């Protein structure tokens, strides 16, 4: 897939990553690329407006932790509000994806699902 500057539903993907563990920005980029087999390979700097927006909305919270290099890293943590939002967004995505698949199958002559 062609590398795009931004991808849709990035916020949902970020919340999904953080549901597993707290992460810092670069770690999220690496993990996102790994889990999607590099399908999601975004411009890395564009992650931060999304993260800061999620923080302002209270779905994630941040804290500082020292890295092995001695530098302080900003980690993000999924809040309770974020977990609820993730469940809602996942459900909406599943419904959306299911509808798209149904239309595609019908259009391909495979008959109704």
């Amino acid at each position, binding site marked *: 897939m062609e590398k795009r*500057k931004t991808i849709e539903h990035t916020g949902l993907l970020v919340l999904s990553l953080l549901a597993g563990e707290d992460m*810092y*920005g*670069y770690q999220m*980029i*690496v993990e996102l690329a790994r889990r999607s087999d590099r399908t999601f390979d975004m*411009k*890395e*700097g*564009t992650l*931060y*407006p999304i993260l*800061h*927006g999620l923080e*302002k909305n209270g779905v994630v919270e941040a804290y500082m932790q020292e*890295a092995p*290099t001695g*530098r*302080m*890293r*900003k980690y993000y943590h999924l809040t309770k509000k974020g977990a609820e939002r993730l469940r809602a967004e996942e459900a909406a995505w599943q419904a959306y994806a299911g509808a798209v698949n149904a239309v595609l199958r019908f259009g391909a002559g495979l008959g109704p699902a």
Partner: protein
Amino acid sequence: MSAMERQEFCDRVLAKVRHATPKEKTAIRAELDAHMEDHAAALLEAGYEEAEAAERAMYAMGDPEEIGAELNKDYPLGWLVLSRVSLILTVLICATFLFSWPKLGNTLNSLQARIAPETSGFASTAKYTYERDLDIRAEIGGDILRIYKVGLDVNRDGETGNAALFFCNYSKNPFGYTADLMYLECGTSGIMESARNYDCGWCSGNAGAYYSLVAKIPVTRTDNAVVLTDDHFGKYVRLEVSVPWEDVT
């Protein structure tokens, strides 16, 4: 990428973030810089040369102006104004509270009366030939009457003189209010008069503690003590203060 190039990248991002506070901008800069450093370090581990690793890490970030424009949406002017206004209001409220709260001055005065009444104005300015520090206390309702010094000046005849009592009144509760010293009587040999009839100085300070000096109490060698009484709040207190004749040479 050298630290200077990363700095320029961050400068270009932050140039678009108009309404973040200096602290927020410092945090954004640190986060972006750390990201580029981490990515370059990973490329170095993968075998890239330092210069190429730095260049690739910066390229992977994307357009700094676009990043800044998107970040700017997360730091709207409204929030900056709100944070400044709330800071100013907090400072004003604290200043108003501190400078107009009478209890602060009252409490300090009350503490001084408990700990070091001799540092009060009277004790530092009124001097007598013979002085003794005292600590005689009595409870009157919720207040404490404390005599902390006695003074004596002797006339030329060596047999008569004038005594002075230094005392104060404060509430048992350091944050409470105390009554002033209007109920006191003073005298010798069974003759009592209102303390105000003597050469009496009142130093109210504030309602945390009242200080007073009753001076020119006429005494003779046969007056071994000056009596001080207080009668208010349904409580009567009588205190005897020895006149320091034995100190007279």
